[in-house]
């Protein structure tokens, strides 16, 4: 099939199959997404993060944890020979540490999304579908979690669980689900009484089956957009915990912890603290741009 006819097949007004209709819809979404160059920049940054994380061993020229010669290679400024971002107080190559740190950042984002999204969906759809006291109890619970500022609640949880990147991920996930639950509930309320749900109920489908098979898929797209928009915030919270010494522990090359370690040398060796911050900034900017773009394409109601 030539390129032109493939395009025509995708954009056909009369799709011959369900698969063609779905692919065509996805293609149209992609076309409208592609016309937003800021969103494309965001996508490029996020893809770059994934690639760097996957091939960190190949890309990083030095070991992220074991430093070089402490007598001659400490505090080399950026653009030194072989050390594009310079070296830190333990003569470690900052570029290599940032490259390896991308794995931690990606891990945090993915794990928080994987833990928090199902919780939010489950709580929200259950509350919205059953209504009544189930709704009241679940939404009160959600409000309580929303009543704490997110970083503060995460701090309290990490204090209870002990510092470390795994506990930071759990703490951030525990504090992330409430907005998703609210969103899923609102979506569920709009479809709860629609005919196809009633039809499924009359056919004898169980509540669990209706929730899982018929309600959740419809809530998914708006929740996924919301999660993408939140990812920058998740990265910033994780970096903040790392900066306070409650997230990833040294010598792990986590960006927030790297800033904390470089703080002592801020005045004379500014690059040790500022370069990892730039990495955090670029990645969270990427997620923000991507999230904005996705929202514009997938959720025309929110566009303004």
């Amino acid at each position, binding site marked *: 099939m030539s390129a032109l006819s493939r395009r025509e097949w995708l954009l056909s007004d009369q799709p011959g199959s369900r698969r063609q209709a779905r692919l065509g819809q996805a293609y149209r979404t992609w076309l409208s997404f592609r016309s937003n160059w800021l969103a494309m920049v965001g996508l490029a940054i996020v893809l770059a993060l994934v690639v760097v994380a996957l091939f960190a061993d190949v890309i990083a020229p030095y070991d992220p944890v074991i430093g070089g010669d402490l007598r001659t290679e400490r505090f080399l400024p950026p653009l030194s020979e072989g050390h594009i971002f310079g070296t830190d107080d333990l003569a470690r190559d900052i570029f290599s540490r940032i490259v390896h740190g991308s794995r931690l950042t990606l891990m945090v984002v993915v794990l928080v999304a994987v833990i928090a999204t199902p919780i939010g969906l489950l709580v929200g759809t259950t509350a919205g579908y059953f209504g009544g006291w189930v709704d009241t109890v679940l939404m*009160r*619970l959600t*409000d*309580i*979690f929303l*009543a*704490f*500022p*997110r*970083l*503060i*609640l995460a*701090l*309290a*949880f*990490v*204090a*209870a*669980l*002990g510092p470390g990147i795994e506990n930071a991920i759990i703490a951030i996930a525990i504090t992330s689900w409430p907005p998703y639950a609210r969103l899923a509930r609102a979506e569920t309320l709009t479809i709860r009484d629609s005919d196809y749900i009633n039809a499924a109920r009359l056919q004898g489908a169980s509540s669990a089956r209706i929730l899982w098979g018929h309600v959740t898929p419809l809530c998914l797209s708006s929740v996924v957009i919301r999660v993408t928009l939140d990812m*920058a915030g998740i990265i*910033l919270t994780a*970096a*903040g915990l790392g*900066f*306070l*010494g*409650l997230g990833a522990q040294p010598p792990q090359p986590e960006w*927030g912890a790297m*800033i904390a370690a470089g*703080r002592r040398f*801020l*005045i004379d060796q*500014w690059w040790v*603290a*500022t370069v990892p*911050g*730039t990495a*955090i*900034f670029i990645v*969270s*900017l990427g997620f*923000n*741009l991507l999230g904005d773009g996705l929202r514009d394409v997938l959720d025309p109601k929110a566009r*303004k």
Partner: protein
Amino acid sequence: MSDDTDGGGRGGALPRVLWKIARLLATVALTFLGLLVVTFLIGRVVPVDPVLAVVGDRAPKSVYDRVFVELGLDRPLYEQFWIYLQKVLSGDFGQSFLTKRAITEDIARVFPATLELATVAILIGTVAGIPMGVWAAVRQGRLADQVVRVLGLVGYSAPIFWLGLLGLLVFYARLHWVAGPGRVDIAFEYSITPRTGLLLLDSAMQGEWAAFRNVFSHIILPASLLGYFSMAYISRMTRSFMLNELAQEYVTTARVKGVPEWRIIWVHALRNAAVPLVTVIALSYASLLEGSVLTETVFAWPGLGQYLTNSLQNADMNAVLGSTLLIGAIFVGLNLLSDLLYTLLDPRVRRQA
């Protein structure tokens, strides 16, 4: 709800407002109870042994057992919660293991520093954010709009502690425009008699202008930084409210009547956008508390945020839970305040309440 009798019209407006306020207060009480449950449970799962923290690890078994009972740890969990609840409601958050003082006393000492920082920050954020949002809405899609959008995006994406360090590096270490970390230089520390705890206010009231200048040059950098983050949020919301208002028919009517454009924007449209803006400002004031935890660490600002992180790093759980609870309560309180203001200020909400 029993007051949903629709025929009332204007006559029913007042009781409805009262009813709505009562409902809000009940919700807040319930939320606060939830906050207590959460902090209580966090306090129970900590790996720190509260008894050891009191008696030290050399105490004989008999002392350990006595304190164990004294702290109520032998009773069932719900009874422990009941005791905790009574204590908190009577203003007893326990003692800090670190400072050996009551938590309430510690918090009263550090809180004014945070309050002062957050207040200056919200002033900066509001004074800069609202005109920027209006400007972006009026010039929608043009350069001004893009500039405001980019400033907002940077605010949403940059780690606040990184910007703080950059600020210190540039404005303090290189340019010497501002003073460094801390609230005030030691030289001035004792020339201000603390009354309100807000150093700007105290020094101004006592006519200590040299001290005032010093305090100002300490606060301006962290406050601008926090203010920048609220500005990002406030300008974005102002823009969207203003776009909404400028598309209304009364704006067209005013234009047809020949009302000057500046008046339409700043008087007609902005006044209508002001009601939701009050909510936005209250919410960003609350979120400054969150930002202050990281900012205070960077700027060695002796406020609640630094107290919290210090206690965290030393596993001083009473202090951690006390400050967490206080921040949560302020958050809930400001949410309530913004809801109340919204109800009282907006006639449309008032009527449908």
